[in-house]
């Protein structure tokens, strides 16, 4: 099989906390990531598509079409924002990179469906989000359907860390 991956970057801030816990409990659970004023990262988003290579053009997808889709669905809304307050789709979610990856995958999938209504021979395959050089998270779009709901801020659930 053949896949194409393009990388994009956005910078954003966040704070990890559960509203059902005290500041001290949040600090115990999330450590520095729960510092009250938040902090930021330069995220690196990799978007992978899989498909047939068009025999005439040699392309699976035009790079400029993929760029536009990622920009419209994600980058212009996430860049230089606070993930706790500025992103409607992140509302009530703990902005862990797991949750951010899931939300981005869903946004891209929704945008992809509108793009590929013209019968594109390729599909969205994977979304990878690098929070720092040391932390990376990836979801295959095949697995997205089976994925449980992202962790909400208000559920106060017991997290295993």
């Amino acid at each position: 099989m053949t896949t194409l991956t393009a990388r994009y970057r956005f910078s954003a801030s966040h704070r990890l906390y559960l509203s059902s816990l005290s500041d001290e409990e949040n600090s115990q659970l999330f450590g520095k990531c729960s510092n009250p004023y938040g902090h930021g990262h330069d995220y690196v988003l990799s978007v992978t598509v899989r498909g047939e290579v068009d025999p005439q053009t040699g392309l699976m997808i035009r790079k400029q079409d993929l760029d536009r889709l990622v920009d419209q669905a994600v980058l212009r809304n996430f860049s230089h924002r606070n993930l706790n307050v500025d992103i409607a789709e992140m509302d009530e979610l703990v902005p862990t990179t797991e949750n951010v990856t899931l939300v981005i995958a869903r946004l891209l999938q929704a945008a992809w469906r509108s793009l590929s209504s013209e019968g594109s021979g390729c599909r969205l395959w994977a979304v990878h989000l690098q929070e720092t050089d040391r932390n990376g998270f990836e979801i295959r779009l095949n697995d997205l359907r089976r994925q449980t709901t992202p962790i909400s801020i208000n559920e106060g659930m017991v997290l295993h860390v």
Partner: protein
Amino acid sequence: MFVTRKAEFSASHICRVAEWSDTQNHEFFGEEANPSGHGHNYVVEVTLEGEPDPVTGMVIDLKQVKSILEEEIVEPMDHRFLNYEVPPFDSIVPTTANVAREIWKRLEARFDSPAVRLARVRLFETADLYVDVIADSEMESALDGELAA
């Protein structure tokens, strides 16, 4: 076990369909179709799959991998204009996908022993754009079946 070896080559190319006008090509491919061509520092990562030999401890001798990559990729493609100097890109568009698939084709013929098989070719056109050609596995095929169903 997977073993990955990297190689680099720099080459120029134009992405255009011969049957189309310059305007059509520019509309479709954008600046990739600029008529005089442009270049990239390509990076290729070749991944092989096999078990370490019980005596040598190696899946494959990396010196051998290095010389195969040199012969099949670097020597023919480095500092070349792909469209004019490296067949089959005189007749197919040297997009990242097509160059990656050509590299796969060349290497597949060289790594044909039962002990070591070509698992993946990853070709970076830039640091932020790459194409993977991956060996079809039974699992992938089963997954495709499930999706189609």
